[in-house]
């Protein structure tokens, strides 16, 4: 698939924790507008991979590029190398355990980044935050504290918080894994809405049905490497390898 220049590219990306090699040279690119699903067994490196994409983990080797420019390990952008700070302004992340700021209201959770990082005017930031909260169905919760929300509501606030930075790429790290089953749907609904609007996303997930439904491309990771890659149809409905079939069979019961 040759197409537009990638939004993000990983070239031979490696990550080790001590002697444990978690990523063994990943080559991957993310095209604007695509939704990339990342599946694989626990410990295969999915989370480490997505955390390298916004430098929450510093790669041990290889290169990460964003809009064609290499990303440095420094915070500030300097001499053709994008700094970690600038990268994160354009790459949002939603976490498995929400990580909402408990001392701030829902509205403050959403506006703090734009105000502090982008120096946005408070009134403008609050206006946009209100729009986003309405979009995720939580307009009435703007003055509540996170402790008064359900898991599904917390995760929808976390999505609004990431969107408030107007990211070019959104990383979602097992965002429904910590939710009660009956709350998963409301969060997946919001993500589906984003996909329909053309938001570029990388989605680490155990929701195979959802990945098949919303992803435009899926990679299957195993032991720190990309073991298979293709359309959701090819990967999830017609798996070629035995290991992928074995992995998927665990989800069909």
């Amino acid at each position: 698939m040759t197409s537009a220049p990638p939004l993000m590219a990983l070239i031979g990306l490696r990550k080790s924790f001590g002697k444990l090699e978690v990523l063994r040279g990943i080559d991957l690119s993310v095209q604007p507008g695509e939704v990339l699903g990342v599946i694989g067994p626990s410990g295969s490196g999915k989370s480490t991979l997505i955390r390298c994409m916004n430098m929450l983990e510093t790669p041990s080797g290889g290169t990460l590029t964003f809009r064609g420019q290499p990303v440095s390990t420094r915070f500030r952008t300097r001499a053709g190398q994008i700094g970690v700070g600038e990268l994160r302004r354009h790459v949002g992340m939603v976490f498995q355990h929400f990580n909402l700021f408990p001392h701030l209201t829902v509205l403050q959770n959403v506006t703090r980044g734009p105000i502090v990082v982008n120096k946005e005017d408070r009134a403008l930031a609050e206006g946009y935050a209100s729009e986003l909260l309405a979009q995720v169905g939580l307009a009435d919760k703007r003055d509540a504290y996170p402790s008064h929300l359900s898991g599904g509501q917390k995760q929808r606030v976390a999505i609004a918080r990431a969107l408030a930075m107007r990211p070019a790429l959104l990383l979602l790290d097992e965002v429904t894994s910590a939710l009660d089953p009956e709350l998963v749907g409301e969060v997946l609904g919001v993500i589906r809405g984003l996909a329909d609007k053309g938001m570029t996303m990388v989605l680490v997930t155990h929701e195979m049905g959802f990945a098949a439904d919303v992803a435009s491309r899926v990679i299957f990771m195993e032991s720190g490497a990309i073991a298979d890659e293709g359309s959701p149809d090819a990967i999830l409905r017609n798996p070629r390898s035995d290991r992928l079939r074995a992995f998927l069979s665990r989800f069909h019961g």
Partner: protein
Amino acid sequence: MYDWDFYTVLLSYDLFLWGVWKTFQYTLGSILIGSAVGLLACFARLSRHAPLRLLARSYQELFRCTPLLVQILWAYYALPMILGFTISNSTAGLMILSLYVGSFYSEIFRGGILAVDKGQTEAAQAVGMSGLQVMVNIVLPQAIKKMLPAFINQSVIQVKNTSLLYAISVAELTYMTSMVNSATYRPLEAYTLTAVLYFALLFPLTQVADHFERRMRRSD
């Protein structure tokens, strides 16, 4: 039956008031300076640079593991022999009280910061905040809430610790009481009154502190 006579003692009310005022000043001064020192030592302990960590650690252990009274006497009587010039009792007193409470504050601050979940830092970093922005906007507000009870507790102890300046004749409340006692020979009344004054100074403080702590727990 003991013949209580508070009147004689109360004739020296101005000495007691002066003592209360001085005790308040030494407390406030040492809490302010101690907080600054404690914050510095706390960040030095959390620093990436090993020599800074060692320096902060040495300071903490030196002041936490020796008695405050010994530190006060040492700073006033022994330190000048090393320095070659004398230090006034008020300077030595304020300095030691500050360094002493700072060594405890630094551990309280550090504990509060480390108690904030790592996910909070990551979420703040993920929207592009710098290290300082993460600390000011996300970590410190939560850390302060966690450390507040311990901080107040240490500060209450600090009010009482100023009484040890009596040993180097700083004119705080305990020292002033001893002067009233020498003049009136009424130790029961004089020291009872002083105990009441310390209580009157501290009890409202603990109540105000409780109030603030409750208010800060609002978001839980």
